């Protein structure tokens, strides 16, 4: 499902964010990637979700070669994955319902299908009563759940999350992680970048450790 081979990422000024990364993640796996700040977690997350290209090596996700993907193919690839950001990336001028509906609207689903599906997923994440509110009027946890609902609504094969609990309190963090585990149990590959080691220990999942852009540990 996810395959990295000899991946390097170098930014201007010869900053090596990733060095010779080799990685294989199978369909339906739940994987944590941990490491200190600046270790390369976010860079790895960007490579996985086609928000950046590797400087060399190959990144293959869901059958797409992300090092060579064209601008036209990028939109097709992004419809096959779900991405959750630490800063949520919600549209402030749209309601929770509209934010969650975006992935279905961009692929041209019928309005009645969209409405039904959004209602289902909002109920699943416990936000049915917030559907008509705008993001600025709901809490951080609710915003993250909105972002998760948006990432899941089109039933992606891969769910990639960058510090999904970074802005949340411990209770809300556990709630979000439970939700992600339920998604994984339904067959979705889940990849979570986090620096919350306590939470990683409690969850007992495959954990990849990265430091200075190099994978230093992979415990299954």
């Amino acid at each position, binding site marked *: 499902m996810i395959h990295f081979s000899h991946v390097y990422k170098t930014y201007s000024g010869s900053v090596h964010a990733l060095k010779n990364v080799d990685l294989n993640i199978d369909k339906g796996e739940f994987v944590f990637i941990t490491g200190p700040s600046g270790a390369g977690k976010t860079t790895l997350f960007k490579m996985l979700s086609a928000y*950046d290209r590797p400087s060399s090596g190959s990144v293959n996700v869901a059958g797409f070669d992300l090092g060579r993907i064209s*601008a*036209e193919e*990028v939109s097709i690839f*992004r419809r096959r994955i779900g991405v959750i950001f630490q800063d949520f*990336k919600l549209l402030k*001028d749209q309601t929770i319902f509209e934010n969650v509906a975006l*992935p279905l609207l*961009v692929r041209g689903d019928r*309005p009645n299908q969209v409405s039904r599906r959004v209602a289902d997923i909002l109920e699943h994440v416990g936000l049915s009563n917030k559907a008509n509110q705008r993001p600025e009027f709901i809490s951080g946890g609710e915003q993250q759940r909105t972002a998760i609902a948006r990432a899941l609504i089109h039933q992606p094969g891969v769910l990639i999350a960058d510090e999904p609990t970074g802005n949340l309190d411990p209770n809300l963090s556990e709630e979000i992680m439970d939700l992600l585990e339920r998604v994984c149990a339904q067959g979705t590959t889940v990849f979570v970048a986090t620096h919350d080691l306590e939470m990683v220990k409690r969850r007992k999942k495959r954990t990849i450790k990265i430091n200075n852009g190099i994978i230093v540990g992979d415990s299954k």
Partner: protein
Amino acid sequence: MRRSVSRITSHVSKSWHHHLPLQLATMIVLIASFVVVSGVITMSYNLNRVLTLWGESMQVSVYFNENSTEQNISYVKKFLDENQKVEKPKYVTKEAALSVFKEQMASYAPDLLSDKDLVKFIPSSFQFGLKKHINPEEQLETMQTLAASLKVMGGVEDVSYGQEWVKSYSTLTRVLSWGGEFFIVIIAISAAFVMANSIHSSIAQRRGEIEVLELVGATANYIRIPFVCEGALMGGVASSLALALSYGVFSSLKNYLHNQIAFLQLSSQIQFIGMDILLAVIIFGVIAGALSSWICVRHINDGWAAIQSKK
């Protein structure tokens, strides 16, 4: 189709609702640009009308000498009647010319008018103007050619068309015509740049929205079309409002000019730009708005907006 229209309408209305100060500032800049464009076009249009009017009043006189015969006069008449550029040639006999002369000079030189030999000194002539389809820029050359042909004909003493005045008029029309066109092109290009710049600022402030749409898998067309329609709408509305504003200013100025230059009898010639030019300005606004938006949004929406914003 209905969904697309509804999405675009919703995009535009939300854009105005949530970015009102930015959209208003953009609209004001666009209106100001179009007011300048329509002002320059109105000036140029009216200047051209006045110059055309002056050109129409120019006359050529072909004077016959003492020895001219009926045959000479008939030959010149035939030449003028057959020439496609000559408008209504009129033969003025010695007697008719004398009558007009007496009428004009009666109060200045009453003694001169009683001179019975006066008729000997006043020649018969043909007088004509040029057809209206001849451009002001071509009038001098046409008159020079006609004069050269007429001067060598039998019985013709002289051909007069106010050479110095026509030369000055011709130079003025050429300079104003070229200068006006050049100025309109410069102003239009400048307006397009101002529009592009102001729409670019408006779109750049909404980069986050484009980023999110890219991130959820929206295609380039899905992202760009609402922005392009919004740009076209802004260009169309701004140009229409600018024309309405220009018309208001023009009407006030026209009343003022009517009183100030009444002696020139030009006020009936001063008009606001015609419907064809009005439509052209609005179409230019729509196209420039759409094009500016498309260029700006394409610059951001290349599939990798999220990376670029972090660089």
